[in-house]
């Protein structure tokens, strides 16, 4: 217990760091993922190709490799950003490929008639997708997106090893100061549990509110 009370500041910083990483990367991943899902069902072949390639490459890239390449590689081209921003970019791009697949399969669950009805009203592709299909897809996509974001939160632990302030990296300082390793990890684990449970509660709530059984 005293490991937590004596290092509350350190744990708090780490917790907030993980929270910041999770929130910003989630927003980036959601935005990119929805755009890429739109590309993947677009009538233009080249756009479909972009979406497919984006998903195929990023989904098969180890996240550590992405961090490695981004945080150590980009600075050599004079791209100097704060480490945290690099981490958000890496996490966001990586997760966006999973969001894209979730949204795309959500689009596939919307009954064909919906799209056909929209078209017969004379709607364009953008209108059909934006005002008819995506809002309905959103209802079935809540659960898979929720578990993807939980995974993002857990994956953010990797950022700590690339000198970003976050929860897991607090163990190093504690270890150097001679605190019990076991207890420092217990509190780290608890921090992650709080975050993941909060996300899953949020998405449970959203699903109860808007979810559709299809």
């Amino acid at each position: 217990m005293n490991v937590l009370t004596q290092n509350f500041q350190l744990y708090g910083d780490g917790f907030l760091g993980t929270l910041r990483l999770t929130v910003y990367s989630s927003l980036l991943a959601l935005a990119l993922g929805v755009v890429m899902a739109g590309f993947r069902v677009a009538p233009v072949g080249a756009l479909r190709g972009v979406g497919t390639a984006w998903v195929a490459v990023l989904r098969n890239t180890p996240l550590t490799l992405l961090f490695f390449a981004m945080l150590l590689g980009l600075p050599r081209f004079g791209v100097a950003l704060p480490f945290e921003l690099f981490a958000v970019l890496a996490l966001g791009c990586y997760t966006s490929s999973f969001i894209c697949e979730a949204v795309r399969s959500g689009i596939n669950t919307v009954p064909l008639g919906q799209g056909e009805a929209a078209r017969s009203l004379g709607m364009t592709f953008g209108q059909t997708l934006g005002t008819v299909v995506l809002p309905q897809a959103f209802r079935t996509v809540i659960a898979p997106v929720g578990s993807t974001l939980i995974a993002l939160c857990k994956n953010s632990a990797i950022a700590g090893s690339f000198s970003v302030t976050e929860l897991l990296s607090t163990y190093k300082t504690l270890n150097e100061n001679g605190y019990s390793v076991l207890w420092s990890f217990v509190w780290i684990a608890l921090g992650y549990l709080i975050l993941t449970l909060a996300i899953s509660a949020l998405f449970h709530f959203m699903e109860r509110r808007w979810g559709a059984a299809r």
Partner: protein
Amino acid sequence: MTARRSPQARSSAPPAASALYDVPGPRTRIRHFCYGVLTVLALAALLGWVVDLLVGTGQFSAVKWRPFSYVGIQELLLRGLGNTLKAFAMAAVLALALGAVLAAGRLSDHRPVRWVSTVLVEFFRAMPVLVMIFFIFVALQVQPLPALVAGLTLYNGSVLAEVFRSGVRSVDRGQREAAYALGLRKTQVMTHVLVPQAVRAMLPTIISQLVVALKDTSLGFLITYEEFLHAGRLIAINMDYTMPFIPIVLVISAIYIGLCMLLSWFATWVSRRERRSVKAGRSGAVRVAPAEAGSAMPGGSGIR
């Protein structure tokens, strides 16, 4: 996730038509063509910019690529790749075994066994795999390889346990009842009737989870396990070779992504074959939701 657009609609119409847009007329076709050209131009510009950046900073100069022809460097890289594959093989085998044990525990008729396995599965799925690896590495003071393999095994084993369990539960109830009616014992029903069908149906998901394990072996880099990335870093920080960092990243990324893609592609192939054979009625017994191949994310199944 399961309901896909009916295959007939997809196969009878050209790929240009979907529920979301009409078959394009002549003017729309021209417009789409223009969009396509614009996209390609934008991509070409991006690619050109990147290549220009790489060439401008001399990444393609012979000096930076010469190290790859040295035997020592090649051996270092190959050893790294070998270590990665070694960790993957060990983690995959152990995770499959652990998954089978935990799934059996969760399907057990004995309540304490069920509870213990449920708690284990839920806990290990909820923890970031890196936290487990670090804990095993730092707190239990083991070597990097066992720490990495143990962490990956615990995490992927728990996820696979859920996959196995849902596979077994998705087998038609009549199968189990028929087997009991024939006088098979509980274990026989499981091993002879339920598991073979479950594994067959869940194979794509299992392979996708193995892709996750393969990707996560790169976490070994963070605990100084001498795997592929580690080998790359060793070369990159070595001053003798004028720091060919970018070439190393290019080569390593290509190999890593290629390996994972190969495995993902295998999962897709298996699931496509599976779906075709089910449709053809050759194995009418197993009707489970076709698993979306390769859709697993590290931690993707999460705690919900």
